[in-house]
């Protein structure tokens, strides 16, 4: 008899405050597991955002800093420049990264900061209660787009992986999801790979996780994961958008 799955020690025992079925818990675990498997928990420093994951610093069992809204890539830049030998991550939601922090993520990526950004895209502002996000799908309802996002009125969503992959600075960009166990496995692989690339000092690494928000989508957690598969992923296709390590291997 062997335990084949238990909670990683890279997470604390603080109870997660997230709503039932919120995938933040899944992604927190994947980040923590990846660092543990790489034996980098002792060297990890994570910059956490403003948004639902503002308390991620309490859940990760390694060094952490709570950042101003959208500024985690700048703050992480400051940390990484002081400690180039440490593993520096940002963990950000879509409002944080793709709206108020657009400049910071683009320029951290363009500078090729040797950090890893984990980007949670669930197409909604969770913490503030369901307002339209930069990634809200056309037609998707939000408390500030009550009839559904109309690109003519509310503008268009931003596909961040595609946008960042146009830059020379990033070395690895992948979009994953966590709506099925197989996707969870792939998401972990991507996060681990990004961290390994950071450890080698090759450049900026970015993993977008297409995620859900059952509470603000008004769906059960299970239905929300279906929505991820049926609506979100077709708009935000999964896959590797940039990988210089693969190019090197050719």
């Amino acid at each position, binding site marked *: *008899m*062997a*335990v*084949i*799955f*238990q*909670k*990683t020690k890279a*997470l604390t025992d603080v*109870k*997660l405050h*997230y*709503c*039932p*079925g*919120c*995938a*933040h*818990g*899944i992604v927190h*675990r994947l980040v923590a597991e990846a660092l543990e498997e790489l034996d980098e928990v002792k060297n990890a420093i994570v910059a956490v955002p403003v948004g639902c994951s503002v308390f991620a610093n309490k859940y990760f069992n390694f060094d952490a800093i709570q950042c101003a809204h959208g500024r985690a890539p700048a703050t992480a830049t400051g940390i990484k420049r002081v400690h180039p030998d440490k593993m520096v991550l940002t963990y950000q939601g879509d409002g944080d990264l793709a709206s108020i922090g657009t400049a910071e993520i683009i320029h951290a990526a363009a500078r090729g900061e040797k950090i890893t950004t984990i980007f949670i895209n669930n197409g909604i502002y969770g913490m503030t209660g369901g307002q339209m996000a930069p990634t809200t799908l056309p037609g998707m309802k939000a408390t500030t787009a009550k009839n559904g996002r109309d690109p003519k009125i509310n503008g268009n969503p931003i596909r961040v992986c595609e946008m960042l992959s146009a830059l020379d600075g990033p070395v690895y960009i992948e979009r994953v999801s*966590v709506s*099925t*166990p197989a996707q*969870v*496995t792939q998401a972990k692989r991507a996060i681990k790979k990004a961290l390994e690339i950071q450890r080698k000092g090759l450049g900026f690494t970015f993993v977008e996780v297409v995620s859900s928000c*059952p509470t603000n989508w008004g769906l*059960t*957690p*299970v239905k929300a*994961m279906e929505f991820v598969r049926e609506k979100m992923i077709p708009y935000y296709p999964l896959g590797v958008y940039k990988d210089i390590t693969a190019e090197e291997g050719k």
Partner: protein
Amino acid sequence: MAKGRVTINEMLCKGCELCVSVCPKHVLQLSTTKINALGYNPAEVVNDDCIACTSCAKMCPDCAITVEKLD
């Protein structure tokens, strides 16, 4: 096929049912009788058909699931 055992930490479970939805052997259900301290009906094991695939644990957002492989 491997035999496994799932243990739910009922105090952490928020009853989201993601584990229930992905279990290929329908091992898990939300309790209809218990309500935990968080106010949720926790998931519980309802049969011995677990194959130790860990799908439930992978989907659990609250790290409430431990999986063992039985020889």
